[in-house]
């Protein structure tokens, strides 16, 4: 063992000795113990990303099954009951198990690197969040295999999901899966907020924070504000179903509409929880490939923050047919249309950046162009459905299905895929294939538009959502067949992407530290980064540190090498305040997650599971926080 001497500082060691000492201090143990006890943000984020993409693939299979069923009238591929489960699983899986987790995971990987620190804040909470997320995903998919998957839609409206109509345990599985994924999301959000506000590299004042980091900060605040509403809603639903409370039972003084308000107070910001990280990725990619800083940095930050606030004043536009006063609804129409302004500001800033720069059209930038096209179409139909008269006509039709797929796939999946191509070299140390990347882009772009654009027409022609089949005399057959065939092109694009990612991770060309000549700090370390991220913490003098100081980055010194230490800095100016310990690997977050999972799953069946299940949770938490006599426990 290469044990570092007590209180050795980084400035006292030559570079090779420093790297060796830090590697020893920050290493993750090998074997099963290392797998279960790891707290390195990069390891946790990689697991999150891979797991989320597995869920994407599973959700894609469900979508294909639905398209197979709908390709012809009166098809019998799926029974009505199985179809109900499948569309519920598809929406729930894509929103809660893919979109939110994968975008947060990209933040978990990149934010500490971009702000120049050695690990995320609360790394054990980070590990806990992954295990909880995994347990929630497993719960949903095991329930599906056992034919007890939820069948109440991804928003589980009462009274359909209540005790009167939602018999069995299907709605309970949905509600408790929500609890799992929301706990995980909240944990990650808290970590990111603290990392951004208190762990930035010296000199990275508020006006020098990368736009992706701003986007993750804004997203995290939205998560913290929005998720409690749905946790309250799902918990109330379980209580209604399990112990006979009457939160949503009008006969006993409850309110059905309360569910819609609670769900959509979370549900609409959820769209921006998915969208904001994606626009952060777009800014990073545009900046690098246009070879100039993003035009209108101030306006971009304003747009991110204003969007994250406005997101909380739009939820009623999902309830325009619920019978609220017209004037009250119009206030939400006004806010819904206003949010197009910050979105438009961002689009114009990206276009101006590309216009004024020298764009290099590599695969990540292609996905960004695809994003701009599809997101603008989705945004325009968004303005349309923000209008009460129009929304009343197309509510619950395929027009809405088309709209939100344009917003969510166009607004989040295109940037995500571009982001994967962009940061893949940093994460794996290998480049993805440009040729396969271009194939993947064009297949996905063309397949997506051929699949989802006709759904606008189907919606205007009156085809409702969530129907498992339709009669031959309805005028929807031809377009549905066309949509189903087109979805195969989309699937082919994703297959090319998966093949490229798996192949490149194994045998792709080696990546340099900064293969794209990008300006932000994650490219200042090796590809992939070492366990300690940076041998010495960088000092930032501008918005684009690697372009501002191309020859040699200034660094701060004075951190100990014999214990896990990082710099805590001030919120506004990022002046160093103290050296703070970062916790070592621990098995306790895993056990805490196991105990929490047993308690939550048990509570689907008996309320006593909460009482008895809290004992192992308490034991795991005591173990988690018990001093371990490591150097990090020193005051």
């Amino acid at each position: 063992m290469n044990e570092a001497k007590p209180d050795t500082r980084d400035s006292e060691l030559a570079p090779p000795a420093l790297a060796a000492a830090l590697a020893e201090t920050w290493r993750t143990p090998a074997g099963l113990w290392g797998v279960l006890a790891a707290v390195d943000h990069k390891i946790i984020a990689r697991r999150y990303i891979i797991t989320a993409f597995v869920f994407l693939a599973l959700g894609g299979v469900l979508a294909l099954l639905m398209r197979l069923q709908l390709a012809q009238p009166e098809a019998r591929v799926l029974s009505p009951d199985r179809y109900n489960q499948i569309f519920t699983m598809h929406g729930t899986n894509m929103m809660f198990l893919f979109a939110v987790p994968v975008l947060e995971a990209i933040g978990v990987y990149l934010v500490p690197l971009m702000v120049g620190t050695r690990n995320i804040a609360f790394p054990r909470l980070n590990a806990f969040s992954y295990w909880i997320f995994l347990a929630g995903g497993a719960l949903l998919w095991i329930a599906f295999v056992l034919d007890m998957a939820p069948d109440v839609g991804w928003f589980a409206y009462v009274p359909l999901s209540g005790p009167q109509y939602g018999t069995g345990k299907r709605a309970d599985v949905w509600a408790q899966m929500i609890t799992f994924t929301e706990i995980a999301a909240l944990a990650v959000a808290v970590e990111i907020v603290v990392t951004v506000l208190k762990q930035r590299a010296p000199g990275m004042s508020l006006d020098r924070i990368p736009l992706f980091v701003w986007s993750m900060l804004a997203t995290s605040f939205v998560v913290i504000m929005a998720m409690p509403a749905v946790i309250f809603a799902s918990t109330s639903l379980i209580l209604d179903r399990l112990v006979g409370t009457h939160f949503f039972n009008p006969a006993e003084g409850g309110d059905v509409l309360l569910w819609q308000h609670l769900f959509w107070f979370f549900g609409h910001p959820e769209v921006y929880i998915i969208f904001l990280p994606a626009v952060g990725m777009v800014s990073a990619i545009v900046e690098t490939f246009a070879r100039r800083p993003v035009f209108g940095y101030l306006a971009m930050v304003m747009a991110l923050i204003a969007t994250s606030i406005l997101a909380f004043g739009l939820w009623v536009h999902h309830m325009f047919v619920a019978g609220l006063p017209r004037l009250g609804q119009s206030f939400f129409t006004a806010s819904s249309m206003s949010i197009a302004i910050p979105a438009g500001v961002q689009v114009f800033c990206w276009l101006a950046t590309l216009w004024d720069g020298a764009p290099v059209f590599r695969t990540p930038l292609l996905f960004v162009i695809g994003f701009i096209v599809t997101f603008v179409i989705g945004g325009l139909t968004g303005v349309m459905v923000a209008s009460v008269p129009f929304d009343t006509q197309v509510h619950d039709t395929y027009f809405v299905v088309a709209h939100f797929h344009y917003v969510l796939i166009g607004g989040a999946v295109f940037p995500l895929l571009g982001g994967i191509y962009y940061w893949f070299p940093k994460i794996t140390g290998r480049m993805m294939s440009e040729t396969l990347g271009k194939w993947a882009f064009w297949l996905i772009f063309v397949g997506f538009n051929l699949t989802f654009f006709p759904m606008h027409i189907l919606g205007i022609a009156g085809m409702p959502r969530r129907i498992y089949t339709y009669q031959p005399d309805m005028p929807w057959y031809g377009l549905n067949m066309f949509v189903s065939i087109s979805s195969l092109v989309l699937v082919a694009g994703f297959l090319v992407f998966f093949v490229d990612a798996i192949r490149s991770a194994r045998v792709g060309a080696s990546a340099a530290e900064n293969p794209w000549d990008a300006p932000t700090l994650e490219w200042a370390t090796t590809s992939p980064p070492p366990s300690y991220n940076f041998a010495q913490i960088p000092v930032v003098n501008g918005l684009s540190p690697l372009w501002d100081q191309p020859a040699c980055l200034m660094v701060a010194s004075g951190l100990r090498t014999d214990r896990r230490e990082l710099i805590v800095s001030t919120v506004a100016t990022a002046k160093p305040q103290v050296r703070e310990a970062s916790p070592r690997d621990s098995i306790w977050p895993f056990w805490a997650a196991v105990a929490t999972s047993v308690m939550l799953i048990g509570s689907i069946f008996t309320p006593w599971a909460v009482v008895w299940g809290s004992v192992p949770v308490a034991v795991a938490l005591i173990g988690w926080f018990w001093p371990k006599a490591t150097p990090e426990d020193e005051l």
Partner: protein
Amino acid sequence: MISNRNRLALEACTGLSVAPAVWIVNTQLGQILPYLDCQHQTAYSAMASFAGAVAACATAVISWRAAQRMSISEPSPRTELSFVGSMSALSALLFAFTLLMQGAASLVLSGCQR
């Protein structure tokens, strides 16, 4: 006693804190006042919205002026707070626009419509 520096920092954040708060309050009023509008045949909703828009514009001015003073403050300009002030002012203008839209909606619809 608030120091001059802290006062400027507070002013810089006014647009980003007060203007959204006004918008949130007005959105809530939009669920309450239509009943009064209908009952009394007045335009309380419109008045509240336009008053809110004026207030949001005022916070934009306060934040913008604070940003200008920060950017030339002696001995060292506080660029990060000047940045916050400018961003705050722009945000306040966006919320002022939203409040204006809500006010315009109040003029088009009556509180009696269901």
